[in-house]
């Protein structure tokens, strides 16, 4: 693996311009002071209760995501290019979804193979021909971006279902501003605090036609035991909307109501953080107690907007991912601004043969997996693990894709032995309303805290950083 691109240091000893002030400040600040603030930050997180649950971890049901106090910095120019690329990508995702559930031009043009859609468990036949308000499917997208050099931004993954993490983007900034006012005074950091306002505006803009002029928006959560519950309550609070659970909602005459102390009140837009499968036990999983019976018929009747729409999984599926550059070109007639990671589709015999021959150098991912579960990182795996994976691959090649092990860029990070480079990625959040697509400058930077590790997922020991876009 090549030496990773470091976002602060240029080989030879120079600093990238965006980091010069930070480097000066780090030189002036004694390590103890940094350590003290780090502990203070942890205390704040715990007191505010910013925790997440790890599934299958019986020991502690609530854990903190480690927070690294060294910000990750990007220049305004870099951001401008990234922003343009993100908007382009999300526009294409929305057009793709609209097409898949209506005319299917892209299948007829043989850009994407039919079976990848129709045999995909995340394809929702219920959505065929269904009009969604304002033709927006992905209102909130989290696009995972990595860098390997100073030029390119590469999309690692599109998250078009219920992407999480935005509360960390906002809380990390709050805490950084509290702990390091001096450091902020020495930079011009673009603010992120208008995200909740923009989200609310986007959600209200996509209300169904039958809604009143003051549409009611609610956030649907699976409940306190969900790993992202903190984020759900945080966002509902910031947006000033009700945080509802399935049992708080009821469908009558194809309209959705919430049970309030004053009786039933109509809901027009649901920002749902419940997966498709659990939304409506009458349509999807009958054993779901998280959903609302009849929700899908209200949806079909056009009386409720679900954000994101049902069936968006077909756009962020890892098997579809490899077609994204073609999808962008097909709908927009433009060259994709953001690159894809070169991807071998194990369903194709030629690609499979290559993957099997090079397992020890590749990252192999389950097409339907997420959260870093069930993937093989070849260079870090033992021989036995690789052989076990080889069998799995041969048995069900269509369930996997493979990518080269990327030398993710690194940023300076606090470690037990002082500052050291650690690999990072970035998840910006792209909002699409009826009229416009907006992105708050920044996003959630995740950092692999273990030396050499490339896995940034919080469920696998990753941490987070505040992300600064300099307003030059």
């Amino acid at each position, binding site marked *: 693996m090549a030496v990773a691109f470091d976002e602060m240091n240029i080989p030879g000893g120079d600093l990238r311009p965006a980091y010069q002030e930070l480097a000066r400040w780090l030189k002036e600040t004694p390590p103890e002071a940094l350590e003290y603030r780090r502990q203070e930050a942890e205390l704040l997180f715990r007191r505010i209760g910013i925790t997440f649950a790890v599934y299958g971890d019986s020991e502690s049901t609530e854990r903190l995501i480690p927070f690294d106090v060294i910000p990750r910095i990007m220049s305004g120019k870099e951001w401008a290019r990234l922003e343009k690329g993100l908007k382009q990508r999300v526009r294409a995702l929305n057009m793709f979804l609209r097409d898949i559930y209506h005319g299917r031009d892209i299948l007829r043009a043989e850009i994407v193979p039919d079976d990848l859609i129709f045999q995909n468990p995340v394809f929702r036949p219920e959505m065929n021909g269904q009009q969604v308000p304002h033709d927006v499917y992905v209102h909130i997208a989290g696009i995972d971006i990595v860098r390997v050099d100073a030029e390119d931004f590469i999309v690692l993954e599109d998250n078009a279902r219920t992407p999480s993490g935005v509360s960390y983007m906002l809380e990390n900034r709050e805490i950084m501003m509290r702990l390091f006012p001096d450091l902020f005074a020495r930079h011009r950091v673009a603010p992120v605090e208008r995200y909740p306002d923009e989200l609310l505006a986007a959600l209200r803009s996509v209300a169904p036609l039958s809604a009143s002029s003051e549409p009611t928006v609610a956030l649907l959560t699976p*409940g306190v035991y969900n790993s992202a519950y903190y984020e759900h309550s945080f966002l509902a609070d910031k947006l000033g909307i009700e945080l509802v659970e399935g049992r708080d909602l009821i469908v009558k005459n194809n309209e959705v109501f919430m049970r309030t*102390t004053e009786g039933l009140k109509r809901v027009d837009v649901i920002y749902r953080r419940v997966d498709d499968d659990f939304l409506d036990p009458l349509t999807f999983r009958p054993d779901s107690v998280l959903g609302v019976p009849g929700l899908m018929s209200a949806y079909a009747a056009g009386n409720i907007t679900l954000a994101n729409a049902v069936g968006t999984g077909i756009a962020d599926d890892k098997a579809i991912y490899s077609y994204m550059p073609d999808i962008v070109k097909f709908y927009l007639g433009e060259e994709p601004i953001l690159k894809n990671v070169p991807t071998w589709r194990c369903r194709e015999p030629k690609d499979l043969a290559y993957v099997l021959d090079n397992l020890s150098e590749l990252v192999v991912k389950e097409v339907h997996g997420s959260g870093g579960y069930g993937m093989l990182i070849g260079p870090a795996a033992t021989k036995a693990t690789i052989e076990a994976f080889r069998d799995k691959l041969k048995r069900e090649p269509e369930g996997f894709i493979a990518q080269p092990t990327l030398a993710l860029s690194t940023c300076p990070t606090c470690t037990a032995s002082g500052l050291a480079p650690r690999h990072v990625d970035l998840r910006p959040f792209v909002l699409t309303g009826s009229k416009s697509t907006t992105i708050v400058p920044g996003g959630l930077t995740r950092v692999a805290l273990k030396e050499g590790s490339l896995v940034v997922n919080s469920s696998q020991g990753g941490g987070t950083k505040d992300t600064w876009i300099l307003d030059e």
Partner: protein
Amino acid sequence: MLSRTAENLYWLARYVERAEYLARTIDATLRVTALPAAYIGKTNEWDSALLTAGVAASFYQAYEEANEHNVVEYLSFSMDNPSSIRNCIEAARLNSRSVRTALTSEMWDTINSAWIELQAVWSKGASTREDLAKFLRFVQETSLRFDGSAYRTMLRNDAYWFSRMGVHLERADNTARILDVKYHVLLPEEEHVGGPLDFYQWSSILRSVSALTAYHWVYRETLKPWLIADLLILNDTLPRSLASCYGNLVRNLDQIGVAYGRQGPAQRHARGIRNRLEHSNMDDIFQHGVHEFIQEFITDNSRLGEIITKQYLI
């Protein structure tokens, strides 16, 4: 607001109030049992503590004897007692988490910090009396802080009123339960009226509802059983009296009625209880039977809880 949110706020307040009451009961019992036997007679004060907490039956399923060690453990730290202080704080935190959006950050911080302290410092209970005293103080301070932050930071809307209703309903229940268990020492015809024995019983009752100093301010008298009963039942200047709790409950329910533009059975039922308290005097109550009066009140009070639940919370 969501019915579930109102329900959580209401129960959150009840749990915090109950935790404080339990802490006061233990505190008062510790004081009275520290006296030489000659001063307090042969009654088992720890048994009384269980009765006022309403958990005597479940306690005796797990323990043989109601002594300091067992009762303190059961009321404070036991996981098996659903209304132990520990479980009240756990339940309060779970409720807070479900309704974080309806709490101010000060209220959340109070409950969350208490829960963190409970786990960090008190997971093994209290090993010495000194520790226990510290624990009881921690519980009372949590409740004061919670109440104070609610008072100082919450918007005066239905969220606040439902939360206050939880406080007053629980408080009325607690005061009534003490009276229910101790009513016999308040009877005027009790044999050794004014003896040292009753004096310490009386001060213990007052202490468990933090009204010992208040008594002297109100009556400027030595402790007299019927005045104690008067203070705890009818005197609406004492925040823990039944009359005061019902004054507040009626007010909160009226505020909700006005905000929602309609009244219901909860408003009527609460007003009925308040009117009865307003038009009673201690002579009538003693004649009617203190015990019967209190038992009726406890039933009426929990009935109001059911009516509120039906009218607003489900």
